[in-house]
């Protein structure tokens, strides 16, 4: 039974290896934590330390399937980053507390597919990523 689960897990990791996620967060600890977590799920990870860094890295043309975007960072605000990225799915990661109506507004752009409140539950984060771009 355990062997089967391991095989399934490895298959999942192999499939995920084709998916690339960009983590944009100014806090190194958070970037590295999420990176380690999602790499263990088989995703390929690119990190960016702020909005400007993210936009610069996106220009390099590598196919990105999902961006986990910190909502409050120094430099170019997340709202400006989102305006420039319309063809990649985005999940906001936020330490800032917003109202329910503001959350709804954040989802107005079609490619915004999720919202994760910090501090986050790791299982919830993985689930939201999988829901967004598949296993």
């Amino acid at each position, binding site marked *: 039974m355990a062997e089967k689960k391991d095989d399934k897990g490895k298959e999942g990791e192999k499939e995920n290896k084709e998916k690339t996620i960009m983590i944009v967060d100014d806090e190194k600890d958070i970037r590295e934590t999420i990176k380690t977590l999602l790499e263990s799920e088989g995703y390929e990870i690119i990190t960016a330390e702020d909005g400007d860094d993210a936009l610069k890295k996106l220009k390099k043309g590598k196919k990105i399937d999902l961006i986990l975007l910190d909502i409050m960072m120094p430099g170019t605000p997340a709202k400006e980053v989102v305006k420039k990225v319309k063809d990649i799915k985005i999940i906001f990661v936020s330490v800032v507390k917003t109202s329910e109506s*503001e959350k709804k507004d954040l989802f107005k752009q079609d490619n915004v597919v999720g919202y994760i409140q910090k501090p986050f539950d790791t299982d919830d984060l993985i689930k939201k990523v999988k829901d967004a771009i598949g296993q």
Partner: protein
Amino acid sequence: MNFKNKLEKNDILLVKIGSNNYSKAVLQATKELSEKKVCYITMNKTYSSLEETFSDKGLDMNHIFFIDAISGSIKEVKQNEKRVYFISSPSSLTELSLAISKFLEKGFDYVIFDSVNNLLTYHNMNTAERFLNRITNESKENGTKTIFFALKIKEQEELINKVSTFVDETINLEERQ
């Protein structure tokens, strides 16, 4: 812990709290002080979310006015709300300082600063310290009593310790409760 009583004896308080009790303490302080004119400076919650929380908890919002340094970074804001002034970004300290000065000149009884820690996301420690020291002095000059809230985070202890040198009293809330 009664914040109102503490502010009868002190002009400027620094309240250090662990993350579990943080929101509860800030809410309690706001509730206690809201009988008089309060300027609430938010660096980590939007005005809209505070309005939502305070209404849910039955706070009388008539005397609470906000300086919101957050909403401008996550959405388009219009300066047409009577009880809130939006700063374009928490990194704009000049804009924030000017807004605080204007508010203080209007005569507020209390300022609640939520929170010291958030400044360190956008500014280095010296800048954050100078900024907080300036608010302290301005509050005193205007006769406004101020509470600085700070989340107990080990990596940010240095700033919190520096702030404690220019306030009248530092309260370590969890140790006292």
